[in-house]
């Protein structure tokens, strides 16, 4: 299953998405990193974040809604204490970072340039605090400048992560113009559950990110749409993958890599089961996407 993406060798297309598996300390006591194509860290922000108050998780049909609030110990602690463990893992590491301004992204990207991690994923869902605006991923000018500056300051491959926004094609175009190396699709769309006994939202913050099999068709549609518009743009596809058939469907939609997130919360061994199952399937990975176009 080995293949090459952006000059980096992958042993298979199965990676862990950012979030549910934290920074790997727990999951890699259960499954071997060496069987995976890659691992994405939990999103790291410049300053530490204690995250949202509970409840942070609620289940829905076919998935969950989470509102973790990017809990992490901050970029400095990550650089001082988190790197050795991740560098010891026998798999490709994708570092997910979340910034509240262009400057925060550029600082973290340039600092990460001295690590051995080949990929950086930009979580663009944070609000632009410096300019008092909404998410950076929704501001074309700031997004373009952020991508351009980040690329200027690193030799790493940079991916930008988006949810299924209505103007997704426009924002991806901005990223491509800024020199992005690839796109990660899809980040969790917004969801909510209300307790019918109290009339109040169940999550403390009200809204959260919907994930799991419930969002799989949305992910497949968005990946397919973007791949058709930008055929050469590498895509990390994710959203509800829990078995090998899901991975094949995402590859057919145009993904180059496939991320598992919520799946590891259901069963931490799911990624390994998928890799094993894929190795038994007899088909060529080369023309999966082209089949979907016919």
């Amino acid at each position, binding site marked *: 299953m080995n293949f090459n993406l952006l000059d980096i060798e992958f042993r298979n297309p199965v990676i862990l998405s950012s979030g549910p598996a934290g920074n790997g300390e727990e999951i890699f006591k*259960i499954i071997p990193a060496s069987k995976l194509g890659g691992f994405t860290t939990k999103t790291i922000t410049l300053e530490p974040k*204690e995250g949202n108050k509970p409840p*942070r*998780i609620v*289940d829905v049909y076919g998935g969950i809604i*989470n509102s973790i609030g990017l809990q992490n110990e901050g970029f400095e602690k990550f650089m001082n204490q988190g790197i050795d463990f991740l560098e010891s893992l026998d798999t490709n590491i994708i570092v997910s970072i979340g910034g509240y301004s262009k400057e925060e992204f550029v600082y973290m990207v340039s600092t990460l340039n001295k690590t051995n991690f080949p990929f950086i994923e930009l979580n663009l869902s944070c609000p632009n605090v410096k300019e008092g605006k909404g998410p950076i991923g929704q501001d074309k000018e700031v997004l373009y400048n952020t991508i351009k500056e980040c690329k200027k300051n690193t030799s790493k491959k940079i991916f930008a992560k988006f949810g299924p926004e209505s103007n997704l094609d426009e924002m991806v175009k901005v990223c491509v113009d800024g020199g992005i190396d690839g796109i990660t699709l899809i980040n969790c769309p917004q969801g909510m559950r209300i307790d019918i006994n109290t009339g109040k939202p169940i999550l403390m913050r009200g809204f959260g990110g919907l994930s*799991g099999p419930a969002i799989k068709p949305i992910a497949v549609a968005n990946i397919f749409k973007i791949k058709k518009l930008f055929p050469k743009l590498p895509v990390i596809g994710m959203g509800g993958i829990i078995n090998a058939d899901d991975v094949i469907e995402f590859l057919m939609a145009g993904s180059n890599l496939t991320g598992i997130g919520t799946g590891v919360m259901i069963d931490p061994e799911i990624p390994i089961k998928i890799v094993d199952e894929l190795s038994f399937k007899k088909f060529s990975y080369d023309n999966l996407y082209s089949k979907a176009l016919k």
Partner: protein
Amino acid sequence: MFLIKGILISKTVCKDYIVAKFELEKEINVEPGQFLMLTNKTEPVMAKPFSVVSCEKNILTVLIRVIGRFTNFLKNDLMLGDHIYFRGSYGNSYYNTIISKSNYILIGAGCGSAPLLHFEKKYKDSVVKSFYGFRNDEITKIMQNENFFFDEIEKKNIIETAYEYFVKNSENIKGIISSGTFNMNKAVFDKFKNFDLEIYCALDERMGCGVGMCKGCPIKIEKEIKMICKDGPLFDARKIDFNWNEV
């Protein structure tokens, strides 16, 4: 295989609770206070955490409050001979968390009583007296215990009942171990905090992964955010920031 298959070998149900016994495909060690994640691999997709009442070799007994889709599935749809899957055990043993190791009062509320029943069975020399509180005596249709108390019959809650006992026997008590909802645990702490006692609370929260990686079940301990599944579920109540959870 990481998931352990468990066949349902007995089930008794009342309106709000189930006592279910499973035969697991292999023996597992579950210390009192540890929990297991249960899943039926279909819907709801997420595994759910449950404390055990007893685990002897490969026979596991759980007390479950019927509250959502998964517990309704267990109550209404899972038949004798059917199987579900378990993973764990997770969390820390109560016995390893407590300092004095003896002379404790146990206060459980609802299915929060389950891990304390397990604890009392295994570490009976650590327990002076136990109080398991339920709203009414419905539970006695499926489980009996001489230390069950019923709010509607006693006309007071389990914390008051335990407190009255403590006041009369305080010289013999080193600590309190409480298990129930967040608000119940907070009420236990408020009731006993001014006494020279170890107070421990077993916290409950909606969980995601059960092993600490998803950051789904936080609690503030002193100034740090800890995960109930990985760092708990039992915590020194004097270190819990009970105010952090409030809106």
